[in-house]
């Protein structure tokens, strides 16, 4: 197993893990932080940590949720550090970028709906947004998300339910449209 080789100090094995997971790690970090430069630093740090903590990795568990756990934790802490500095500017830029509803060159309904959804995802609390990212973007199962975040499966399910309801609300409020009638129970 590659992690066992990393544990023995094999840098090539770490390189193989890097090739296998770099895009997933980078994509997740970018989705959480919205900052590709920060994601680059996180990508580096994730693999340095994999190397440093390979000893503590439980080999009975799958590797992927573990690397997601490191990625999410780093993305959280780096984002929180940066957040207070950039929040003000980010909000100002978003307000300038947002298309006006009275704009005659208004985008199509479907495109607008997607934009609304994107903003609604960004507006979710971090703890819910990350669940959405891991579940929908990365395709992790509820159990894998739970392991990656270190929370019970029930918590993941309730966060998914809450986040999905919020997103549905955000779209229906703005569009007045009818969306799915799906009952989302994750049982």
């Amino acid at each position, binding site marked *: 197993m590659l992690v066992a080789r990393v544990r023995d*100090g094999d*840098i090539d094995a*770490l*390189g193989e893990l*890097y*090739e296998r997971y*770099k*895009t997933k*790690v*980078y*994509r997740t970090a*970018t*989705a959480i932080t919205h900052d*590709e430069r920060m*994601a*680059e630093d996180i*990508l*580096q740090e994730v*693999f*340095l940590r994999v*190397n440093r903590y390979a000893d503590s990795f439980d080999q009975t568990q799958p590797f992927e949720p573990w690397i997601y756990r490191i990625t999410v934790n780093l993305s959280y802490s780096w984002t929180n550090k940066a957040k207070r500095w950039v929040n003000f500017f980010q909000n100002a830029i978003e307000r300038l970028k947002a298309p006006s509803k009275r704009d005659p060159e208004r985008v199509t309904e479907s495109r607008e*709906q*997607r934009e609304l*959804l*994107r903003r609604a*995802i960004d507006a979710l609390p971090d703890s819910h947004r990350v669940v*959405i*990212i891991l579940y*929908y*973007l990365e*395709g992790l*199962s*509820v159990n894998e998300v739970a392991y990656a975040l270190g929370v019970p499966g029930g918590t993941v399910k309730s966060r998914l339910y809450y986040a*999905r309801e919020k*997103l*549905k609300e955000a*779209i229906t409020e703005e569009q007045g449209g009818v*969306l*799915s*009638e*799906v*009952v*989302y*129970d*994750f*049982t």
Partner: protein
Amino acid sequence: MTLRDEPQSRFEDPLDVTIRSVLRESVDDVTPPAGIWEQISERLIRRVSMNMRRSDWRRGFRLAVSAAALWLLDSATDPPAEFAHCCPLRPDERREKDYLYLLIYQCDLPMLLGQAV
């Protein structure tokens, strides 16, 4: 309709499909730039060599302290028993290498011996 947890069925609903698609779109062209692995391996190699240097230094310093203790023991006319007790090497175990370490670490020794004496 009830959504279940299986990957096959969980993205059938239009809202789920749109959520996934919007998220994918936001990171669609995102790929890690080249050169990151080189930076990681460089940092690892630097860290390993720093650790080796530290561990060499510690090992050498221990030998130097032993040699210094022996030298003090030899020089003292009436060394305190505790001091002799602390000395890890007997006089017949002295080696040239120990004195070499003593030379190498001569700058650091006064600080340590100053605390010990």
